[in-house]
């Protein structure tokens, strides 16, 4: 890992484009559904036909507000849409409606938890870190260009055609730009995960990088420790997962340091991450220095967001993940790690909390949810929301242990049986005859039988070989076919042997 090179400091800033989970586009009523025929979801507005006008989808504003609040950002009461002018075939109007000098939110800050990673990539030593958020603004997505590969022309002539699909044009995006505050690729990694979780938590965005509804670009530069000026930066694109982003940053940092130390100079450019070769390469169409000629979008009124609207939005949102993590640590006496893992997503936190309350054993609930249940779900390729075992049923299993109906080992065998769904703990215990024997008369009878069957060991125990106690416990449990309550067996056996 090159970032440990102590003579150099890494400077990273991130831009995230998160698709807001609206049913319709930001400036027209077309569907945002994916996987449709090219240009099926288009109308005069998103085709940029002459005379068509944009009308703001208020749902996009609500979701942007949710996103901002989930990240702890303040929302400007007034923001202004602006046109970003440039020519590209996937941009039907010749400009993108975005926000510029009066964005939806600006000058924000959020605190993430970040950790260093050991050689195996395991997180060590989680620490809070503050990240400056330059801005969060609303904008529309562009469409997609598709190019026929050389020599595959579908038209039968020698030309290679390019096609434009505008289904995605006009999809609402929240762009979130940070200050250059990250000092390592793992900080960037932890930040993106933080943002993803927050957006998913409040249903603002699916925030799935693989599906492209969360896209990330990183600005990376290095400088000698102690330097005050920033080094020349490169912009990294085509980062299709958080892990790819982290690797791409490390790759670039190493490249920069080597190049500078060898007397070379960094060229400011946009680079694409190639996930097959684990290297970066310059974008083929070398971008010119664009003058986007931003100016206020005259077709839309300034966006006024009232304090009442913000309050109502806040009110309709679930308790935010960090607050919930802290509450789990406080109320349920969980470790930071456990509480963090259990608040990785809203459905998980909800599940855990129901199980914890229903079983009245938060500690055990945490262990089961993170341990056996997680494994069972994973082998079945299910997420927590799809769990065939409800939180209440899991709680019943925990209660069965706590009331000594079954022991922990038995419970571990019961859970897989519950995974088929629709079966209660009770039914399984009864049908499998697992009920733990806590009848002292019955246990005493087995103890007497067991001692009688093992006179030699009894003699040795009496002679002082106390290590044989375990042998008797095992023998009694075995004699009971595993049903005897181990705690009672322990107590009663010790008394019996002492007689």
């Amino acid at each position, binding site marked *: 890992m090159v970032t440990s090179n102590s003579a150099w400091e890494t400077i990273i800033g991130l831009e995230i484009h998160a698709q807001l989970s609206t049913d319709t586009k930001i400036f027209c009523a077309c569907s945002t559904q994916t996987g449709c025929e090219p240009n099926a979801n288009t109308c005069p507005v998103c085709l940029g036909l*002459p*005379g068509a*006008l944009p009308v703001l989808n208020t749902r996009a504003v609500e979701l942007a507000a949710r996103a901002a609040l989930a990240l702890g950002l303040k929302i400007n009461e007034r923001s202004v849409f602006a046109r970003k*002018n440039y020519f590209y075939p996937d941009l039907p109007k010749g400009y993108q409606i975005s926000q510029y000098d009066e964005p939806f939110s600006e000058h924000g800050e959020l605190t993430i938890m970040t950790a260093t990673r050991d050689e195996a990539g395991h997180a060590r030593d989680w620490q809070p870190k503050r990240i400056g958020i330059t801005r969060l603004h609303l904008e529309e997505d562009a469409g997609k260009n598709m190019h026929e590969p050389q020599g595959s022309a579908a038209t039968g002539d020698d030309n290679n055609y390019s096609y434009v699909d505008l289904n995605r044009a006009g999809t609402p995006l929240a762009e979130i730009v940070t200050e250059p505050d990250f000092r390592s690729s793992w900080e960037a990694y932890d930040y993106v995960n933080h943002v993803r979780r927050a957006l998913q938590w409040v249903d603002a965005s699916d925030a799935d990088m693989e599906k492209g509804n969360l896209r990330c670009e990183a600005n990376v530069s290095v400088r000698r420790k102690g330097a005050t000026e920033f080094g020349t930066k490169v912009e990294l694109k085509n980062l299709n997962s958080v892990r790819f982003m982290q690797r791409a940053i490390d790759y670039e940092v190493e490249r920069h340091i080597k190049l500078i130390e060898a007397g070379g100079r960094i060229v400011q450019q946009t680079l694409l991450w190639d996930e097959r070769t684990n290297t970066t390469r310059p974008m083929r169409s070398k971008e010119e220095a664009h*003058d986007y000629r931003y*100016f206020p979008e*005259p*077709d*839309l009124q300034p966006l006024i967001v009232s304090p009442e609207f913000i309050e109502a939005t806040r009110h309709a949102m679930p308790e935010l993940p960090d607050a919930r993590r802290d509450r789990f640590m406080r109320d349920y006496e969980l470790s930071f790690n456990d509480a963090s893992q259990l608040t990785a997503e809203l459905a998980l936190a909800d599940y855990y909390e129901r199980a914890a309350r229903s079983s009245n054993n938060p500690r055990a609930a945490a262990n089961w949810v993170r341990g056996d249940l997680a494994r069972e779900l994973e082998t079945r390729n299910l997420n927590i929301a799809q769990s065939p075992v409800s939180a209440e049923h899991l709680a019943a299993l925990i209660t069965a242990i706590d009331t000594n109906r079954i022991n922990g080992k038995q419970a571990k065998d019961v859970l897989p049986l519950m995974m088929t769904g629709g079966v209660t703990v009770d039914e399984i215990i009864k049908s499998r005859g697992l009920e733990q024997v806590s009848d002292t008369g019955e246990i005493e009878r087995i103890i007497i039988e067991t001692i009688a069957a093992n006179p030699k060991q009894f003699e040795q125990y009496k002679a002082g070989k106390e290590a044989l106690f375990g042998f008797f416990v095992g023998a009694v449990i075995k004699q009971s076919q595993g049903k005897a309550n181990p705690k009672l067996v322990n107590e009663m056996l010790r008394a019996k042997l002492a007689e």
Partner: protein
Amino acid sequence: MNNIETLRQAIDDNSITVPKLAEATINHAKKLNPQLNAFLQLDRDGALSQAEATTLNGRSNGDADKVFRGIPIAIKDNICVRGLQATCGSHILRGYHPQYDATVTTRLREAGAVIIGKTNCDEFAMGSSNENSAYGAVRNPFDLERVPGGSSGGSAAAVAAGIVPVALGSETGGSVRQPAAFCGIAGLKPTYGRISRYGLVAFGSSLDQVGIFATNARDIAHTLRVIAGRDARDATSADVEVPDYAAQIEGDIQGARIGVPRLLFGEGLDAEVRAKTEAALNVFRDLGAEVVDIELPHAKYAIAVYYILATAEASSNLARYDGVRYGVRSESAMTLKDMYRRTRDEGFGAEVKRRIMLGTYVLSSGYYDAYYRKAQQVRALLRRDYERAFEQCDVIFTPTTPSTAFRLNEKTDDPLAMYLSDIYTATANLVGTPGLSIPCGMSSENLPIGMQLVGRHWSESVLLKLAHAYEQVQPFTHRPSVYADVLKS
């Protein structure tokens, strides 16, 4: 006299059927168009089927809401009418057929109007003479050697020549009022936000409004009522009640305060135009209006501000004509960039290119503050000028144009002189206030002269009432040399 009320009367008393009227209108248009070049497209089939449909729906009998049933109307070519071309007077949109109706088109259809065709205009509404059309200049019906004004010259000429009683135009900086003045008819630019812009091809979005041409104030009132009002498809259309303008048009104008910016009656104003507008002012005095002097200290900057803001917005609005999706695409290009360049070079005319370049320049990094931002600041000062003026008066009175219709080619080599023909009109677009031009006399060369009333936001009723009062005592009866009375055919 070809106006809504006489045609309504003729339809209602069975002296002409709606299909016959549509037919006669189309025939007149066809007959006069070789001289005027006012129409880019006539839609006989569409007009006749609309006419038949209104007949099926039964006759109306003076019902105010049915005043438009069967009335022929022409629409400027930068307003979308499904099924008809919308070239905007540009080669780049040759053959382009919009797949949807503009909101004004929808509202006219619903009111039963019969759309007979699309009228010629300056390319993308950029011009003051209609000489910037890729399909040839429009001629002024009063003098075929003169321009009808622009950019809505085709609509103005069609109404002035008696072909249709009403036509829609559009305004970004005087493009309805100026041709109305040149052609001796009435032209209204409503308050910004009064009429939906959905389906009006954008030029300067913060200035554009659909405008109305008619032969009198009452017909404008009827038309405005039909097409005005909030439209969910246009975020800049205002949710302000639409009154029954025609019902409010009668009555005396005693005590109305007419503000006159004396400084605008000075240098550059044609003597005859001044004389006729001064005379009109006296008519208003005689009708009981009070004439007060006002000041508009920043009026002298209006044209400069207008040409910065309008071109800035235009440079962005016209970016979509790139040859990718619709309209004309240059066939000779080998690369994407080349396709953009050649398509736009071959597709746009000289004035449009000039304005795109101007607008691109004023928005460019390093120039934005000096031009665009500064112009917006002056625009705010102009608004304040008007607010202050309207503390003293109800309407601002000026000539509509500094001169009468000029000759073809007279100003084509001098863009600045051309731009100055909008000197009295452009401010209303910058401020967003309504402006109305009506004829107030003829020059010694037998050319119409127009006067302009500009009112507070949403005060169209006031303008129409004053104009109507004037028309009652000073009816404009001059007929152009190229004229047809549809009912006498």
